């Protein structure tokens, strides 16, 4: 009996030591956290460098050492000075990347929660052999997942006790509470309906933009790779290759605020406050020469002063007016066209059909 107790205690101690060391890590939870990283980083089989370097075998890797990735000078230097990625260095780096390696081009602001950091590191460790070995011994026996044989739904109370609401036809659902509507209803219309109270200046927006947006959209909104171009493109809408930006194409400034607030930065949506969103919107207007002063402050009160130059050039769908849409025409069935058909264009000339090679075609659809 005493022997058994001793044995159990040592297991618990080992487990506790491991838990301290690894912060009760959970690689599965870390996989979800990694979604915040996945816009820029790939990990796993076949992972390639994207905006950021691939993260296979990150444990034990010297910082800034992948030969085929272009790091910031700061990151290369950190590696030369001895920074090697391990559990501790990753923990510090992921909490505040730009404090830990000043000058890193990783725009991510950092993970705020300790358990998120621990979990994402545990997840990354599953793609690093050295880390896997270190972790191999002490893990306490995981509880096996129960196999569910049927729906886990709790049986209802006594059916007769269910309260039937009075609204509607079928009396289903319940009234939405004002706090619930406020939590989800963040859309903004061109007439300003939906704008939250707040403000931000062009200058503030510039700082936020460099931190959160420039990595994909470029320092001046010119777009990196195939990420959307946000500025410029003026007078190109009739050109062979139009450049459709906020300044050259978008009809409404409210769309900028709405989209940034609901969906940006990519992979970390809804992380910007109303003030930050006003500031970034102001900066994007500045990048497009819609506003010209760095101290311009965009707010729910000044928003109605803004209009975009291309607004008037949108008109309702009039496809049905095209000759193509005539409905009383029986198409030609015999001896149509002039002479036999001849090839005037072939895919093999411009062919960009994917077959494993890196190739670029003309005209994306994003």
């Amino acid at each position: 009996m005493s022997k058994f107790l001793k044995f159990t205690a040592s297991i618990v101690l080992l487990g506790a030591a491991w838990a301290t060391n690894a912060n009760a890590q959970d690689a599965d939870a870390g996989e979800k956290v990694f979604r915040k990283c996945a816009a820029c980083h790939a990990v796993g089989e076949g992972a390639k460098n994207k905006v950021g370097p691939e993260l296979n075998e990150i444990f034990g890797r010297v910082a800034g050492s992948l030969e085929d990735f272009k790091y910031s000078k700061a990151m290369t230097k950190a590696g030369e000075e001895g920074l090697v990625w391990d559990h501790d260095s990753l923990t510090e780096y992921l909490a505040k990347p730009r404090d830990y390696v000043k000058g890193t081009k990783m725009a991510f602001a950092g993970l705020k929660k300790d358990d998120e950091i621990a979990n994402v590191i545990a997840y990354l460790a599953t793609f690093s052999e050295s880390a896997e070995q270190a972790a191999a011994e002490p893990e306490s026996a995981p509880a096996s997942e129960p196999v569910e044989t049927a729906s886990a739904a709790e049986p209802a109370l006594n059916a007769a006790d269910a309260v039937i609401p009075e609204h509607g036809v079928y009396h289903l659902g319940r009234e939405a509470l004002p706090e619930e509507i406020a939590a989800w209803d963040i859309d903004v219309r061109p007439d300003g309906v939906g704008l939250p109270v707040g403000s931000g200046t062009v200058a503030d927006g510039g700082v936020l933009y460099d931190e959160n947006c420039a990595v994909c959209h470029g320092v001046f909104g010119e777009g990196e790779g195939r990420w959307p171009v946000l500025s410029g493109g003026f007078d190109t809408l009739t050109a062979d290759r139009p450049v459709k930006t906020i300044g050259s194409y978008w009809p409404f400034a409210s769309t900028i605020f709405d989209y940034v607030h609901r969906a940006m930065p990519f992979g970390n949506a809804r992380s910007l406050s109303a003030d930050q969103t006003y500031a970034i919107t102001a900066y994007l207007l500045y990048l497009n020469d819609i506003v010209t002063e760095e101290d311009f402050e965009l707010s729910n009160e000044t928003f109605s002063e803004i209009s975009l130059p291309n607004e008037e050039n949108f008109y309702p769908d009039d496809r049905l007016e095209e000759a193509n849409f005539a409905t009383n025409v029986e198409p030609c069935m015999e001896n149509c066209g002039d002479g036999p058909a001849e090839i005037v264009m072939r895919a093999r000339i411009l062919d960009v059909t994917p077959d494993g090679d890196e190739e670029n075609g003309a005209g994306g659809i994003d």
Partner: protein
Amino acid sequence: MSKQTQKDKNFVPSRRSFLQGGLTAAGGAAVAAIGGGAALAAGTPDPAITELKDWNQYSGPGVDAAPYGVPSPFEAHVVRRDVPWLTADPISSINFTPLHELDGIITPNGLCFERHHSGVAEVDPAEHRLMINGLVDKPLVFTMQDLMRFPRENRVYFLECAANSGMEWRGAQLNGCQFTHGMLHNVMYTGVRLRTLLEEAGVKPSGKWILAEGADASGMGRSIPIEKALDDCLVAFKMNGEALRPEQGYPVRLCVPGWEGNMWVKWLRRIEVGDKPWQLREETSKYTDLMPDGRARRFTWAMDVKSVITNPSPQAPITHGRGHTIITGVAWSGHGKIKRVDVSIDGGRNWQHARIDGPSLSRSLHRFYYEFNWDGSPLYLQSRAIDEQGYVQPTKDALRAARGDNSIYHNNGIQTWYLKSNGEAENVEVS
């Protein structure tokens, strides 16, 4: 069937193998294997018959080998494929339905093309809610269980991305109907009429538009006029009989029959009723159609009458030589049923009626066949659909004359495949 032939079934044609090198070793083997079967000297027994096969001798796996069944390993090449250069990143990207591998009208769930704007949201149905707010008598919240207590209906609808064939505006570019036409699927949905849910909340007379919004990290949102919302829109939770796939909006999506796929909001979590459109990103900076004069059409919702020959096509060459040959394809229209499909084998000079087989449903794919005796000469294959409104699928040149090269969306022009004497097909345009 020899092992060689089985292996060849996994062979995926690439443009290099079919267009640059002519018949490659693998392609040649496929032809030889099939041709060889036919060309066995008269009286030589076929080993596919005379040799004892493993599957004829040994027992196979038992009933529980695959609790959720998967296709035969010989069908491993039948998958969605993407075009990496189209978009910046696979998290906001698209892949394509392998139309050339399918028949009938229904697209299997695992092959329905995907388009996400911030990846696939993994939504726990127990924590999913659908809210209706805005200009209604009483804003409501529904759980999934609530939704499933409303009267349901089953409807088959096609979903086509407005950008389907969008890469072909400047001319033939992609070799394969999967890539030229594969932003398309056709599914039977089970769900509740959006009208039923809106009536439960009570739409105020000032309510002229709805906003449909998703729960994913792109917060996908589109404005839809109330007339459409109260007409045939469906709030669907099943596809082809089973729960929606995560990549198709599990646990619940909106169906907007006949209208562009971007409006079919996935992971649907909110319907707001308003008096004006919201002009969100996907209906201003995207999904607006730039015309040659620099102006742009907006709210171009309906998907026009369209068809494509799926077999033969660049990914599906003819390997049997001349003789009795089947041309097949799909036709669809956002304006209703397909009334007729015509097929031309001479680049549009002469047309024959194709045979439509299978269900003919409004705003659903129709399957057509054209059977003929191929003499082995090169052909220019085209199909042309006409819908019940009388709209006729136009030529690509007619579309360009009206819209120029830069409108990206709504390219429903007639597709031409150049069928060569060796059975290969290539994406071309003809005079």
